[in-house]
Structures are given as structure tokens and as C-alpha cells.
């Protein structure tokens, strides 16, 4: 029968397709990612359930065969579903990373870790060995230093001993007056007669600064010494004048203006004279000295201006005379605590200090 052979061929083709699909699914797809397998299995089963011919042209036998096949297919489908579910479950358990080959990567990492730790251990061992070596070298060096020090002190002892022996030999020689040759005795006598410091040299550290300067600078004809002394004498003069008794101070002008001018003149003259750098330096030093005197000088002036109380004077009057302002009388009072117990208690003839 043509229709049955045709059906037979068709049924065969369907069966082959089915089996092929199942084989493909079960064997090939196992190694594929689980995620991808789902849609593909769907397409296999879909294509299996949509044959290229219609059921109207089939006989009862054929229909029966197809039904049986259909049942088989359903069975297979169920089994495939179950397998898929199992695979999925297993995949979830192992929680594989979404990377192509997670297992081999882990292995590599582990291997690397091992390699690194081996390297570190090796380095540590090397470092320890080096440390040991250095400690030994250090100990050796220390020993060397100690032995050198010992050698040095040993040598020093020998030298001192030799020196001492020489001294005692000399003492013996000197004690026996005839032993020293006459030539040597003459020479020793000449040294004695030399009377210079080489016999018992005066060490330059023992000489005072002044001595040194004197001994060295005697031939030095510099003017700087005299400039310094001139300045000093000028200042001293000034100070001496102030301390002399000046019974009444009539004017309020600074009494030393005259002397100040002459001092200034001296300074100017001396400055003109000092040309070379050395005197300049010395001169600057002297000026500094002079500067340092000024506050002292002021202090002396403060202390040494005096006024004698005239008959009928009040402190106010004196203040007016001296300061041109009577209301500054308290300055005079404060400057004379030993003399004045109160500003009113002044007596004729009293000598009062009058500060600037």
C-alpha cells in the first residue's frame, strides 16, 4: 500500500528526528551552560511537536503509531525535564561563577599563592643567613679593634718604660760628674748662659692678652691706640666737669652743650684722621664704647646737678628757675628723699639734686 509505506517513511523520519533531537539534547547539551540549555530544549521539543504534515492524511494504523510515538516523546520530554531540573539544582549547589572556566582559575590562584609563599620563605632564609654573617663580621671587627687597642697600650707601656730607663741612666750619668764629656759640658754651660725662655719656655698661653699685644705690637706705630685714649679722655673730661660743684644752675639749657660740641669736634677730627681699615675698626670699637657711655653719662648727670636753696625759696620757685615750670617741683622732691621729708620742708642753704 502506498499510503502505508508513505506513512511508514514519514513515521520513520519523525522518529529519527526525535531520537536525533534527544541524543543531541542529552549528550551534546550536557556540557553547555545550564542557562542556555533551557530555550534550546524548548526549540527541540517544539520542532518535534510541529510535524511538516497534517493528521488528516494518516490511516488509523499510522495514527496509532504516531500516538505511540507521541506518548514516547512525552515520556522522553518528562525525563529530559527531570534531568534538566537535576542539572539546574546541582548547578545552584556548586554556585559556579559566571566565568567561562572557574575551576581552573582557582587552581591557578592557589598555585600562585604557593609559589609566592615559597619565594618569601626563601627570602627570609637568605636574610637570616645574611644577618648571621654580618653579626659574625661585626664581632670580628670588634675583636680587631680590641686587639689594636691592646697593641697600642702595650706599645705605649714599652715607650714609657724606655723613657724612664733613659731618665734613670741620665741621673746616674749626672751624678757621676766626670762621665759627661767636656765638650758636652761646655755646650750645656752655653745653653745655661743663653738665659732664654727655651730653658723653661714661657708658654704663650701663660702670657696675658695685654702682654701678648705689647710684645707683638711694640713696633707697630698705629694711631688707633692713641685715638682710643683720646676719645676716652675726652669723655672722662666731660664726666668730670659734671661732677664738679656747680652751686647754682641758672639756665635750663643742657649745661654740657659746650662740652658736647667740643667732643663732637674731637670725634670729627679723629674720624678724618683715621684712614686705614685697621684704625677704622678700632675706631668703630671706640665709638661703640662711647655709645655705651652715654646712658651712664646721663645717669651721672642726673645725679650730679645741684642747686642750693636760697632764702625765701620754695620748691615751686626752684623748679621754675631750673625747669621753667614750677609744677615740676615734684621731680626735685623725688630726687632728694634723704633731704626732704615733705615738699614744704626745705631750708635755706640746702643742696638739692636737680635731675634732668
Amino acid at each position, binding site marked *: 500500500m502506498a499510503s502505508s509505506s508513505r506513512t511508514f517513511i514519514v513515521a520513520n523520519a519523525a522518529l529519527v528526528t526525535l531520537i536525533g533531537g534527544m541524543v543531541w539534547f542529552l549528550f551534546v547539551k550536557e556540557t553547555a551552560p545550564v542557562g542556555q540549555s533551557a530555550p534550546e530544549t524548548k526549540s527541540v521539543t517544539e520542532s518535534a511537536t510541529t510535524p511538516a504534515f497534517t493528521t488528516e492524511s494518516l490511516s488509523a494504523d499510522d495514527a496509532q503509531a504516531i500516538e505511540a510515538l507521541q506518548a514516547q516523546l512525552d515520556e522522553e520530554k518528562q525525563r529530559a525535564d527531570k534531568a534538566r531540573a537535576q542539572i539546574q539544582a546541582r548547578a545552584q549547589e556548586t554556585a559556579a561563577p559566571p566565568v567561562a572556566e572557574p575551576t581552573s582559575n582557582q587552581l591557578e590562584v592557589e598555585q600562585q599563592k604557593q609559589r609566592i609563599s615559597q619565594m618569601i620563605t626563601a627570602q627570609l632564609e637568605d636574610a637570616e643567613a645574611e644577618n648571621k654573617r654580618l653579626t659574625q663580621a661585626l664581632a670580628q671587627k670588634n675583636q680587631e679593634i680590641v686587639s689594636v687597642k691592646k697593641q697600642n697600650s702595650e706599645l705605649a707601656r714599652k715607650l714609657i718604660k*724606655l723613657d724612664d730607663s733613659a731618665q734613670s741612666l741620665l741621673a746616674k750619668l749626672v751624678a757621676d760628674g766626670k762621665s759627661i764629656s767636656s765638650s758636652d759640658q761646655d755646650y750645656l754651660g752655653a745653653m745655661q748662659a743663653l738665659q732664654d725662655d727655651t730653658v723653661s719656655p714661657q708658654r704663650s698661653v701663660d702670657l696675658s692678652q695685654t702682654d701678648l699685644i705689647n710684645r707683638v705690637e711694640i713696633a707697630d706705630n698705629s694711631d688707633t691706640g692713641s685715638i682710643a685714649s683720646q676719645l676716652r679722655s675726652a669723655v672722662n673730661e666731660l664726666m668730670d666737669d659734671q661732677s664738679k660743684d656747680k652751686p647754682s644752675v641758672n639756665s635750663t639749657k643742657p649745661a654740657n652743650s659746650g662740652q658736647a660740641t667740643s667732643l663732637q669736634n674731637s670725634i670729627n677730627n679723629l674720624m678724618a684722621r683715621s684712614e686705614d681699615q685697621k684704625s677704622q675698626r678700632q675706631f668703630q670699637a671706640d665709638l661703640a664704647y662711647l655709645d655705651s657711655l652715654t646712658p651712664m653719662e646721663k645717669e651721672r648727670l642726673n645725679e650730679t646737678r645741684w642747686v642750693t636753696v636760697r632764702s625765701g625759696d620754695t620748691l615751686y620757685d626752684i623748679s621754675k628757675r631750673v625747669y621753667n615750670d614750677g609744677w615740676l617741683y615734684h621731680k626735685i622732691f623725688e630726687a632728694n628723699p634723704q633731704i626732704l621729708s615733705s615738699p614744704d620742708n626745705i631750708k635755706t642753704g640746702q643742696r638739692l639734686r636737680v635731675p634732668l
Partner: protein
Amino acid sequence: MKALYTTLISLLLIHTAAFAQSGSSEIVVQITSSIPTVDVNHRGTPVTVKRIQDTNNKLVDDFAKTSRPCPPFCVHPMQSAPGVATIGELDLLDFLSKDVAQGKGLLIDARMPKFYNSETIPGSINIPFVLFTSSAADILPLLGALPDNNRKWDFQEAKTLLLWCNGPWCDQSPRAIKALVKEGYPPEKLLYYRGGMQLWKVFGLTTIQPLSNEVGG
């Protein structure tokens, strides 16, 4: 990063080297351009021999004198005795650092003790010249000479001696050297520092004052 570190470290090293240079130039008055100071030993005490750093320093004591009576304080010849080398300050310092430190040499202040006790060159021991001229038999064994059969001396083990005295006008060490040569001391084992204390002080080099245990100069 590595390059940066290398640069930083090399800069640091150069900087340190530069400072090291300027450190040694704090000694304004060196002994030579390559020798700022020399460390020696004097009777067991370490001493740094250097020069007086005050560039205005002058000799003010009697080592500044120029004209002592001659005779006997005459200008001495360069050579003290045939075959005996005359040396200078640098050789003396070298001798101290090497021969004396190794126990093979002696730096001898040949003056009478009062000079030595007053001021001497570091590293010196005092063997006054009269011991060489008038007491050779007693002093030579102390210097390593061994008596041999012919009433002479075997100087094979004898030390090298560097003798000095007050200066080129002083006769003490030349007398000592001549006496030693007369006794047969090998001239190549004798050295004459003609400059003496005079030249040593002219350079402002460190001296020792044994009596006070002070270091001067």
C-alpha cells in the same frame, strides 16, 4: 616610581658628600691639602696633631728669636752625619703613624729633660743626647742593639731612630746622631729632623706639655 626613588637617594648622597666636604674645610689651616689633621699616640693618650687655626697667630716666646750666639748656636748643615737622612714635618708624621705605631721606630727628643718636660712633639720619648755621647753602652741595648762577640754591636733588631732637638741652630740631636754613627748604628736606621721644635712651632703644630699633661700649640 623606582626612578623617582633613585633620584631622591642619589641627591641625598650628593648632598651629604657636599656637606662632608664643607665639614673638613672647617679646618681652615690644614697640614696639607689632603691632610687636615693627624691622629697619633703620646704615651698612651691619643692626640690629634693639627695646626693653630688663628691666621693671625705669631710666635711670641723665645722661639721667635733670630740671633743666638754662634758658636755654639750656629746654623747647622742639612746633613748631620754621612748616610743619615734629614727629613721634614710630613715625614715625621708619617714616621709616627707607621714606624712608631708598629713598634719599629722611635721618635726621640734628644734634648735635656727640662726641655722635654716643658714642651715636646707628640709621640716623642726623651733620651737626652748625653746618653748617646757618654753612656752608649747602657742606652744601645734599650734601642734593640745586641752585644756581639767582638765587643761591638749587632744592630739587626735595632729600631729606626728619628732624632730632633730645639731647631736648626741646636746641636743636641746632631751630637747624638754623630755618636750613634760612631758606635756603628746603621745610618739608614737614623733620621734627623733638622727643623726641631723651632720649625714645629713655626707651623703652629700641636705640642705636648708633659708636666701639666696639657696640649698646647
